């Protein structure tokens, strides 16, 4: 029963106009969550909304499990008003995690928008090894940028409006980074989470430069544990469950 439990809300505070950071006090019997895994979180005691919501592990600290979420619709609207001390039901940790790079490999981590929630703990675990490509709409939308600096080797920022870092997409800056003349070419591994179109471009870039890539996919979920077959994406093996065989997939497995 250790992957299904009641968690007490330690903290639920805004970190941006439309993003909150939730800290949950979790039982000791919960398996250790790994970067890339997610939780199904109860947002409501009643029946509307009915289903739990999927959120990535943002960080695991001495305080508990942290989730960074964007207030988007019915469920997250309710979640944002939940008070410290209240209890919610949680399933997790669920799904696959990012496989760690071997010692001689340079990890390149791509985070588009709220995708930072999924890769932050990977950057943290790789303490100082990762080069992070971080993209957002504007400077103001770069969440947890300061915290990230403490763990990354370097952070290459791009914004849609040029208010911070490069103007343009992170796919452009990844492409430019990999196209620099280098000899010998270092061994890289790519990890990416973000909007679907970004993941598609990153997968194409990875193929072009012959770099292994792991990407985190999203689909609407009901059960989170592989039972309903609601959350599939198309892979080379046919329709495959994001909650069980994913959310982290080898990029070359995905059929776009």
């Amino acid at each position, binding site marked *: 029963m250790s992957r299904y439990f009641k968690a007490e809300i330690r903290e639920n505070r805004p970190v941006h106009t439309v993003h909150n950071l939730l800290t949950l006090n979790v039982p000791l019997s919960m398996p250790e969550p790994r970067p890339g895994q997610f939780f199904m979180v109860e947002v409501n005691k009643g029946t509307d909304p*009915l289903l739990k919501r999927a959120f990535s592990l943002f960080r695991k600290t001495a305080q508990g499990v942290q989730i960074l979420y964007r207030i988007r619709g019915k469920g997250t609207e309710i979640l944002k008003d939940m008070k410290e001390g209240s209890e919610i039901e949680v399933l997790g940790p669920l799904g696959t995690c990012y496989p760690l790079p071997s010692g001689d490999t340079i990890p390149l981590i791509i985070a588009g928008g709220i995708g930072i929630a999924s890769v932050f703990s990977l950057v943290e675990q790789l303490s100082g090894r990762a080069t992070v490509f971080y993209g957002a709409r504007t400077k103001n939308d770069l969440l947890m940028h300061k915290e990230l600096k403490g763990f990354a080797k370097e952070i290459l920022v791009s914004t849609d409006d040029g208010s911070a870092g490069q103007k343009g997409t992170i796919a452009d800056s990844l492409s430019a980074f990999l196209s620099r003349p280098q000899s010998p070419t270092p061994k890289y591994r790519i990890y990416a989470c973000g909007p679907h179109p970004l993941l598609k471009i990153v997968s194409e870039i990875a193929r072009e430069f012959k770099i292994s890539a792991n990407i985190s996919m999203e689909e*609407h979920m*009901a059960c989170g544990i592989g039972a309903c*077959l*609601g959350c*599939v994406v198309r892979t080379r093996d046919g*329709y495959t469950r994001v909650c069980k065989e994913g959310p982290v997939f080898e990029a070359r497995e995905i059929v776009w």
Partner: protein
Amino acid sequence: MTMDLSVRIGSLELKNPVMTASGTFGYGEEYAEFLDLSRLGAVVVKGLSLLPKEGNPPPRIVETASGMLNAIGLQNIGIQRFIDEKIPFLRTYDTKVIVNFFGDSIDEYVAAAERLSSVEGIHGLEMNISCPNKQAGWCIFGTDPRVTAQVVSAVRKATPLPLIVKLSPNVTDISLMAKVAEEAGADALSVINTLTGMVIDIKTRKPKLANRTGGLSGPAIKPVAVRMVYEVFKAVKVPVIGMGGIMHPDDAIEFLLAGATAVAVGTANFVNPRATIDILDGIMAYMKDEKVEDINLLRGAAHAI
């Protein structure tokens, strides 16, 4: 007080009336870490066909007020892989295993039923007739009484196992369909499958499901399901398995009072993976409070005037 929770579905004896609804409990193993499957009256597995089926493109699910629409498209691993990979695991539990199955022609239904009938560890079959008939322009087997009669009697001849027919609620008169299935040889009826629905995205101006339509389940459909169980109970003699929006013990008891012999828990498993056990415990607490010694005494009690 001693309490008898056992119920009979045709020749099948269940230790209690709580079952899982097909498609909401995987092949059982997905839930084994959250509850003891041996406590369940029966495990009904995801619908199977003779050959594996890919299912529909995503998005396959969308939430609605107090419910959800699904258009999984009957994705499954096929009967052979189920027998090889899933049955050995299920056999280690002390529960009844009921296999939900379907075909896209009468021949396929028959072949599937025959294949499943010789497997040790399968205690009953549940026929899903809410699927399209390739031979008859993809109209639904479960909505045309003549086709329903044909397919059920063909399957009846093909299997000695207890045969449950799962009725579609997308019909004008469910008691007529129930009588047709009973006459064609069904040992029991499952009532109800999902109600066809649609959700449209007002920004993209398109249906949210890739399949456009999907099946509505969850608390939103419960009153419809209870009414249908009530009507079917009046119309037939065979046992009825009630389902549709059961979230809590009280919901399950409502179905028993409407005439159900057993109940199946579906969408609730997604919200609470231990829902079946919580519902079973709640039914027992109710029986204790109300001094009901035999669960069968509750069946159809709402019909008494």
